């Protein structure tokens, strides 16, 4: 009887193969494990501090216990609204230019510089807006020369712009050329084709791309450090004032000496991470679905 087990060289090749496969499996398991540990730590440490007061009240006065983070929730909402209002139109229009109007060479250039912008560190964007409209004296109504939600929102908008533009370009590229040709063949002019045919069919994709960008912007701290960091204790909806925000508060509380503030930092982190993860998961799911719709038909 011959032994069918591999020996010598063949055996060594099999062992090496097993080792390589095990390494790849372990690496992936480690990355997912870190995500699991991270989410679990945030959940288990933050969940105790969650209460109605946490969401509806301002910070406790010195010596008092309890208190909440309502100003930061309001401030983050305001910042994200300002940022989206600035980034969404510019991002979508840029994408339309690249995929509907621009010659290939110019389109590629725009793409390249958007990618470069996307690669800039967010702290540099913060410093840029600081140098652009916080440090200098601008004679504009109510802003300039001091930190404000407008300045912070502008910094977040610079972060969102390449994300929205790239996501929109991707969706526009998925719209079948036949749709545009059919519209042209009916004698519809280019601008009406873009506004009435191309944009409506890509609306879902633009929405999901924007959601992903919002999820990213809502968690950014570095752009706010120099543009919208030093704020009062009350809820403030005035965009020309500097406002509190969720990530800034986590950052400040994480280095505070007070134990109860640490707990609030964890609770805020839980709120933030829940929002970001749910938003990205939903967006991803919807994106997959719309992609399948266009590629299968």
């Amino acid at each position, binding site marked *: 009887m011959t032994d069918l087990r591999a020996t010598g060289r063949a055996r060594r090749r*099999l062992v090496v193969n097993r080792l*390589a*496969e095990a390494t*790849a499996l372990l*690496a*992936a398991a480690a*990355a*997912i494990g870190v*995500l699991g540990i*991270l989410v679990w*730590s*945030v959940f288990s*440490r933050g969940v105790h501090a969650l209460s109605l007061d946490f969401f509806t009240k301002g910070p406790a006065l010195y010596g008092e216990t309890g208190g909440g983070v309502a100003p930061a929730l309001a401030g983050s909402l305001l910042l994200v609204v300002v940022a989206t209002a600035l980034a969404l139109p*510019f*991002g979508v*229009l*840029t994408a*339309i*230019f690249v995929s509907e*109007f*621009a010659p290939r060479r110019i389109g590629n250039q725009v793409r*390249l*510089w*958007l*990618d470069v*912008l996307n*690669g*800039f*560190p*967010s*702290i540099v964007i913060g*410093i*840029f807006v*600081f*140098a*652009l409209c916080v*440090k200098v004296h601008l004679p504009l109504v109510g802003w300039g020369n001091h930190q404000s939600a407008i300045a912070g929102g502008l910094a977040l908008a*610079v972060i969102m712009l*390449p994300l929205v*533009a790239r996501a929109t370009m991707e969706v526009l590229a998925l719209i079948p050329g036949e749709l545009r040709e059919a519209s042209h063949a009916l004698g519809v*002019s*280019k*601008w*009406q084709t873009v506004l009435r045919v191309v944009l409506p069919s890509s609306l879902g994709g633009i929405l999901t791309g924007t959601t992903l960008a919002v999820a990213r912007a809502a*968690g*950014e*701290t570095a752009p706010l*450090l*120099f543009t919208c*960091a030093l704020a009062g204790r009350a809820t403030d909806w005035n965009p020309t004032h500097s406002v509190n925000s969720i990530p800034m508060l*986590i*950052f400040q509380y994480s*280095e505070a000496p007070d134990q109860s503030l*640490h707990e609030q930092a*964890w609770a805020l982190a839980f709120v*933030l991470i829940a929002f*970001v*993860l749910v938003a990205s*998961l939903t967006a*991803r799911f919807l994106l997959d679905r719309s992609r399948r719709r266009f590629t299968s038909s």
Partner: protein
Amino acid sequence: MAAVPAPAMLARTRRLGDRLGDGILFSLTALAAAVGVLVVALIVWRVAAGAWPAIEEYRLAFLWRNAWNPVTNDFGARDLIVGTLVTSFGAMLLSAPLSVAIGLFLSELAPPGVRGIAGTLVELLAAVPSVVVGLWGIYVLAPFSAHHLQPLLGGGATESTVFTAILVLTIMTIPITSSICRELFLSVPAELEQGALALGATRWEMVRTIVVPSVRGGVVAAVILGLGRALGEAIAVTQVIGNFIPLKLSIFEPGDTLASRVANQYQGAPSDLAVSSLIYLALILLAITFVTNLAAQRVIRR
């Protein structure tokens, strides 16, 4: 027989509204695209202008001066640059092989059912905001590293260390690099892979001789993109690194980086020179990431 009118003549028969509409939409979109590109130039210009007082004071010597003393108004970037390079390249040393392995697992190894879920989970790691990673870094990772990892590697039990920063950056760059790697590996034609397997190669030999060589440039670009993220990360690093210069000769001691130093000074700098030195740091960071990004884009586009 009537001649077919030239296209230029036809264009004139179009309704005025359409001609205007086309022109307006074109100009609007072109303007938006121009703004997007100009923002890059504006960033470089404004940051350089903000740093100008410090540039005039120190010129390029800023790069190798080692000082950060607001009391004597004396500033320099040497140890911050060194700290940035040590943390980023340290993180790359860990993250690059791990990311390639994860990319291979997600594209070649994992059963189809696991593939999508595992891929999504790895990408979700990228969505965790850096301030949350930093918070977790301070209270979970740093104590664990100080009491279990650092003693194993011959370090002390200090919690805020360069080593912890390297670990945090590794965690933050893995999802970026590995998801690009996965896309690259998936783009390798299945015929080539099946050919190798049919010739008797093991899966590892197929990966080593077919998959990796055919996308080597892309893998390098993916690693550089991760490096760009590591170089510029401010918040998570400043939370765990200890913000201390001059640098010690060990990675198991506190340190600091360019981005982390800038982030740490947000509550206000005492003098104009301090503010513009801070912006000078941002300018150096901008220059470094600009070069790494352009390099990565070049490789990708080829």
